[in-house]
C-alpha cells in the first residue's frame, strides 16, 4: 500500500523532508507500527521518533491515536504537540 507521509515542525526538520510517498510492508498495521518502521529507516528518522509517545499523528487531516489502523489512509502526518493560538 503506497501512502503519502507528511512531517511538520521539528519532526520535519529532523527527518529533513516535508513529505514522501512510501510503501510500508503488510505487517505495518497501526500508526505506532508505522512510526516504529520509520524510526528504523535511518539516523534522521530515529532522531525524529526518539520519543515516540510525544509525536502526534493524523490520518487524512484528523487526529488519530497510535493504535489506529492505517489501512485506507491517503495521507498520514507526524508532528510535535501543537503550539498554535
Amino acid at each position, binding site marked *: 500500500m503506497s501512502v503519502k507521509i507528511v512531517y511538520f*515542525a521539528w519532526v520535519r526538520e529532523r527527518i529533513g523532508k516535508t513529505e514522501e510517498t512510501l510503501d510500508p510492508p503488510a505487517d505495518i498495521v497501526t500508526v505506532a507500527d508505522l512510526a516504529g518502521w520509520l524510526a528504523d529507516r535511518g539516523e534522521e528518522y530515529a532522531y525524529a521518533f526518539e520519543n515516540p509517545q510525544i509525536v502526534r499523528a*493524523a490520518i487524512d487531516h484528523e*487526529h488519530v491515536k497510535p493504535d489506529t489502523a492505517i489501512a485506507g489512509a491517503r495521507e498520514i*502526518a507526524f*508532528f510535535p504537540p*501543537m503550539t*498554535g493560538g
Partner: protein
Amino acid sequence: MTTTDASCATCTPVIRIQREDFDIAAEIAALSEGRADIGALASFTGLCRDEGGRLSALELEHYPGMAEAELGRVAGEAAQRWPLTGLVAIHRYGLIRPGENIVLVIAASSHRHAAFSGAEFMMDFLKTRAPFWKREHLVTGETGGWVEARDADDAAMARWTA
C-alpha cells in the same frame, strides 16, 4: 477559505488560515451586518509578545488543509454546546513580529455567557488541537527553538469535559 458546519443551525462558522493580518472590526461588521438578533459578541485576539525583549519574531508553521478542517470541527462542537449565532476563527501563519496579531476568535449569541464560553472554548481547543507550531526567532539574529506545548493548555482544554 470558509468552512460550514451543519451542526451550527443559526450560524455558519467563518474559518480562515492566512498569512495576512486580520481586521477585528471588519470581522465583527461582517458577522453582525444587518442583524438585530445578536446581543453579545465575545472576541479574543492572541498577539505575539517579545518575551521581555528576547524575541524578534515568531514563525508559525501549519498543516494546510488539516488546520482548516480541525478549526471547523472545533467550531462545530462550540456551536453544539452553546446557542451561538455567529463564530469566526482566523489563524495566521508565517513570520509574526512582536505586537502583531496571531489569532482571532469571535463568538456571537443573544446572551453574553454563551458568547464568552464559546470564544474561550474555541481558544482552549484550538491551542491543543489545531495543527500549528511556533518557532522563536531571537533578537540576536539566531533562530531559536520550537515552542514547547504547555501543560496548562491541556488542563484548560480538559476542564470542558470534566
